[in-house]
């Protein structure tokens, strides 16, 4: 990362405890302006808590940092006024209409020419003709678009999105990511937590978190290398049988189907190579060594760590 890029989030060694349970543990992150930064990690790994700290909702127990140049500890109000935070759960009022919700949020941010801004947001969303519908009557995809519109209403320079696409259909998800890309081009910095692999690959950089600790952090392209996976591709017929046979063989950590072949990955290149070659020769299959992709790395990371909620004293939502 070059020094002349403006750093929007710069946080060092922050920790947060709920009771005896450390939810965020010695966490550092630097996010440059205009980046789309992905937060990956299993449930309960501390993604939500970290995002809440970054937008000034929670005060860290230890560590310090700045967000948009404002101190996390002493200037949370300044941060709140400039950040768009989209919660995991739909958090607008179900019993208010779409317009009333947007108008309410606009008033919270003391926006000038509020009416114009709300009209523009409705137009932008394509919700102008449904402005008087109750939010409760919207489908999951529309609710998510409304929530995004609400957290963009004050033109934030930083977006913090906590699993924004959970429970949203693929078409709406794609539209959503197009919007994120568009915003990113305009210089808005986006930090987004997700469970979906196809979303992770859209991020410029990725931080992987488990049990409140950041395990991996870097540009998307380098993640597989950081994880240290080697992948072989095997092709031929009867792939399902082959998958069963090869699973659990020496050196094989993970087997996944990709198109007309299977990708066999492992962390010990020598042992894995021997296993793959043995099977390929015996069954007369085509094999090739592949550069391990983000997909493999992602599956590896997600299957490797269990649900972090299995620990006691989980934080309140």
């Amino acid at each position, binding site marked *: 990362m070059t020094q002349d890029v403006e750093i929007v989030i710069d946080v060092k060694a922050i920790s947060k405890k709920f009771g005896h349970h450390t939810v965020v543990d010695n966490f550092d992150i630097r996010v440059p302006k205009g980046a789309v930064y992905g937060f990956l990690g299993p449930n309960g790994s501390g993604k939500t808590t970290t995002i809440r700290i970054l*937008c*000034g*909702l*929670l*005060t860290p127990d230890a560590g310090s940092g700045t967000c948009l140049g404002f101190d996390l500890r002493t200037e949370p*109000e*300044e941060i*709140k*006024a400039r*950040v768009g*935070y989209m*919660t995991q*759960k*739909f*958090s*607008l*009022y*179900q*019993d*208010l209409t779409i317009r*009333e919700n947007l108008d*309410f*949020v606009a*008033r*919270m*941010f*003391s926006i000038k020419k509020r009416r114009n801004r709300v009209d523009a947001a409705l137009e932008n969303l394509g919700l102008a003709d449904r402005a008087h519908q109750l939010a409760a009557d919207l489908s999951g995809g529309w609710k998510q678009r409304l929530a995004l519109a*609400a957290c963009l209403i004050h033109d934030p320079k930083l977006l913090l999105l906590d699993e924004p696409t959970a429970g949203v259909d693929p078409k709406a998800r794609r539209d959503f990511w197009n919007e994120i890309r568009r915003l990113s081009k305009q210089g808005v910095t986006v930090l987004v937590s997700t469970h979906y692999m196809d979303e992770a690959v859209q991020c410029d950089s990725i931080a992987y978190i488990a049990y409140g600790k950041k395990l991996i952090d870097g540009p998307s392209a380098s993640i597989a290398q950081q994880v240290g996976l080697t992948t072989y591709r095997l092709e031929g017929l009867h792939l399902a049988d082959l998958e069963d046979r090869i699973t659990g063989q020496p050196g094989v950590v993970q087997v996944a189907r990709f198109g007309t072949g299977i990708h066999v990955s492992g962390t010990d290149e020598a042992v894995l190579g021997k296993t793959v070659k043995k099977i390929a020769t015996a069954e007369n299959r085509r094999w090739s060594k592949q550069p391990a992709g983000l997909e493999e790395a992602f599956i590896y990371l997600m299957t490797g760590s269990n649900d972090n909620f299995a620990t006691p004293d989980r934080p309140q939502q």
Partner: protein
Amino acid sequence: MKWFSISRFLAVLTKEFIQMRRDRLTFAMMIGLPIVQLLLFGFAINADPRNLPTMIDLGDNGPMTRAVISAMKTSDYFKFTGYVDGLADGERALRTGEANFIVVIPPNFERDIIRGDKPEILLAADASDPAATGGAVGALRGILNVVIRQNLTGALAGNTPRASPFSINVQREYNPEGRTSTNIVPGLLGIILSMTMVMITAVAIVKEYEQGTMEMLIATPVRPLEVMFGKILPYVLVGYVQTLVFLAASFAMFDIPFTGGKLAFFIGFNLYIVVNLALGFLISTVAKNQMQAMQLSFFTILPSILLSGFMFPFAGMPGWAQFLGAGVPATHFLRLVRKVMLKNAGIADVTGEYMALATILLVIGLIAAKRYRQTLD
């Protein structure tokens, strides 16, 4: 950044009013509840019950006996529903609830009176509910004395009960007719206000947390005070409307007097509303969901009814219960309202109640503020 923004406060207030308007059922309940309760309890509760079912075991049938029975009938306390035959039958009637009273007139009742043998009339009462029978039993002696005196004349006059050497002159102050509703109705205002104010506040705040909207709210620049005032003020207005509706209905239907100071009432009433809102707020910091908030609110209602002196005289409770009752806001508001409406009290007469309510408010407020800070982080 401003410490308190009027425009954000107004935004929260407007939002709260829109939500209140959309929730028709709750809104209807807030206005309908006082009237329904007033009708129900104002008419239903009677501490001096009349027309209680009574049966007679008649062992004598002379003119004196008939005079006794007809006097009991005219007293309104007793309603004669039939005859029983012997003690066993009388006991059965009491047990089954067919009668609340069995009057046993012994054989030769009239002859024994004339002889001066002082015969006994047995009044067997179902005293499992003391309140139901107490008034009637107390009234009976007076009724019978009059009857006997009227019937024993001339030479028999010497057998009449001797008059007491002194007389007691009872003045029923503030409620000369002894109507229960005059006591119950003003108290009911305290109960209704505490019921709705505590519950509505608790539920309205917990709802924000439960539905996740509080997280969105506190992620905006809005200040906690703006949220709290914006959310609570609409319910203060609801309390005003409830009180107006209630007072109008109670003047129209129950002819309740309002003799004391209007300002004394107004101050106490506002203080009481704020205490209840604070209590609702405290509950909201404990409850995790709307159901718990409801249950906790209901939990506060029973002491308000049973320990406050609403149903049973406060002075009649044991010391420890009075101690507990003194911690219930309704206790002090009830005294205040009864003093002001019935006893012609002014501000000077109810300062004790003001102080008590203010103390409770302070304690609840401190605990609530402490808990509120903990839940934010």
